């Protein structure tokens, strides 16, 4: 463990660890195979209040710091990152409301989540991934309501959410300045949940299309001023990158834990393989990357807690950590040898689970462009 935890953080981590190990872990393998997480497993998280961690106290939430929230999600991700991201995604949506919404909108959102539910963030479209300004979904004003139309894709918690923050073009001709954000109830007439993605990894996480057909929302459901949606989404995503990174740290830590345990037990040539220098080098490099990643996540979280803009730091964090995670999980499979390639052992899943971390919340290639653009400005 590379961080200096407070007593409170230690207690919270022990609590979450106990729950995740006892109640979630035994069902992960089966859920991974089926590609969905049973509802009963989420109940454990709701009972503990994991859905309220980041919701401010003024709205009845726990109001934990980003730093402590991230530690808790790393702990959950050790058991299953798909389970963890289901809870994290509520906050990806929430952050838009906190950043730009009214008090009433914040309370509305919190009240939707409190009884035990999830939220989703609907930005991506089939032809608007790294380039959200290319989105085609529209919001047309009609009296004091907007009429929403369009199809969103790869929506985490698509079928689980009770509320979404969605992005629509209020001025289709205006490019990214024509995008506005809305709070949309999942049960609003015209909202349909599309097909569930059969994914390579994070298979406990629900990912679907979301179809909006003449969905009417009150004009007061708009988050922030008209046309500010693109900027809002980018600002909210800046805060979300270190959070996906913390999940990747959890996956890596699990990979390291499993690998060390195995290397101590597995004997070849009459010796536990951990005594062989080639294996030692693999393990040491894994430990180095886990430790460095965790420190980077923690520092980014502490900057966010101070209210510092983390456009560059969030991108650096997410890119570095998710790149490390590929190597660490791949080497875990290497240490397990043939058994690592088998689904009977836990490490191949970690390799599958971590690939998407180089893709979502902005592909790592986009992150490098962002980092370079900020550098360009900084050195002017």
């Amino acid at each position, binding site marked *: 463990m590379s961080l200096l935890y407070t007593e409170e953080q230690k*207690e*919270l981590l022990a*609590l979450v660890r106990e729950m995740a190990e006892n109640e979630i872990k035994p069902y992960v393998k089966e859920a991974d195979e089926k590609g969905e997480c049973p509802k009963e497993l989420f109940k454990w998280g709701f*009972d503990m209040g994991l859905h*309220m961690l980041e919701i401010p106290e003024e709205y009845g939430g*726990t109001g934990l710091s980003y730093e402590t929230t991230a530690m808790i999600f790393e702990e959950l991700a050790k058991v299953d990152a798909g389970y963890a991201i289901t809870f994290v995604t509520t906050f990806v949506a929430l952050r838009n409301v906190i950043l730009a919404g009214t008090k009433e909108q914040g309370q509305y959102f919190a009240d939707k989540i409190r009884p035990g539910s999830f939220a989703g963030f609907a930005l991506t479209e089939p032809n608007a991934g790294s380039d959200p300004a290319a989105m085609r979904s529209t919001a047309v004003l009609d009296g004091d309501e907007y009429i929403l139309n369009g199809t969103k894709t790869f929506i985490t918690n698509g079928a689980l959410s009770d509320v979404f923050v969605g992005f629509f073009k209020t001025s289709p001709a205006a490019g990214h300045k024509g995008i506005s954000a809305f709070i949309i109830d999942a049960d609003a007439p015209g909202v349909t949940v599309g097909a569930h993605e059969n994914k390579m990894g994070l298979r406990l996480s629900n990912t679907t299309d979301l179809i909006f057909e003449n969905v009417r929302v009150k004009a007061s459901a708009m988050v922030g001023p008209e046309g500010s949606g693109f900027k809002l989404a980018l600002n909210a995503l800046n805060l979300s990158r270190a959070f996906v990174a913390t999940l990747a740290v959890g996956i890596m830590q699990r990979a390291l834990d499993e690998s060390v345990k195995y290397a101590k037990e597995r004997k070849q040539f009459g010796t536990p393989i951990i005594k062989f220098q080639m294996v030692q080098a693999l393990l040491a490099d894994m430990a180095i990357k886990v430790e460095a990643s965790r420190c980077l996540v923690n520092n980014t979280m502490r900057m966010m807690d101070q209210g510092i803009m983390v456009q560059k730091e969030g991108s650096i964090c997410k890119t570095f950590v998710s790149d490390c995670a590929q190597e660490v999980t791949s080497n875990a499979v290497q240490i397990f040898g043939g058994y690592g390639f088998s689904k009977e052992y836990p490490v191949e899943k970690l390799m599958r689970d971590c690939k998407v971390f180089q893709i979502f919340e902005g592909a790592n290639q986009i992150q490098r462009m962002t980092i370079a653009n900020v550098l360009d400005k900084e050195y002017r």
Partner: protein
Amino acid sequence: MNIVVCIKQVPDTTEIKIDPVKNTLIRTGVPSIMNPFDKNALETGLTLKDRYGGKVTVISMGPPQAKAVLREALSMGADEAYLVTDRAFGGSDTYATSYILSQAIKKLDDFDVILGGKQAIDGDTGQTAPSIAEHLGTARLTYILDLEVNGDKVIARRQVEEGIEVIEARFPILCTATKESNKPRYATIKRKIASLKAEIPEITLADLPDADVSKMGLKGSPTKVKATFTPKRSACGVTIEGNTPGEIANALIGKLADGKIL
């Protein structure tokens, strides 16, 4: 409904190792936990509160470190916690402990139900909780699985060797819970944070002016420990094998006869 739950801090016996040379328990570095059966008792109390409303008060006798288990109880949902602590209470056996706890409970609000675990995993006597009922003159039901309230009566399902007894009793009552009673809930994050900051009031000898000091502490304890030792391993048994039950029975009778037992 006013519910009092008695809890004890115990060493986590699953973590205890035996010194291979001295044959004694290695107690250093062993984490302290809430006695698991007391956790079941707490869950019983919290379930009663969820169902019928009321207040759950937890009480523990021990040194200041025992506040840790009281905090844990608060994090799980208990409303109030008290530590019963005083130098004069040190060295108490189950008789003295149950007397002191009964006096402390009297000091709290009137109670409807007192709960405790069926026994503690360190001493394993199972005497303290039932003795509290004796000191207070209330009914007691040990090894209960659950409680249902019906007006001024309580219906308990009680686990006994022969099966399950269903017993009706009147309030106030003391009950002890077992592992089979329930699955204790986890703390919530919010309550956990609050519990770490909670002030835990102490009940000391000075708070019990009407209590009889001669029934407290080492001097008030009729139990005298003569010696503690690890029992010698007795000789191993013998497995009699054979192809048919008759063959095995014949071999057994032969052995008993040889040993002049038959």
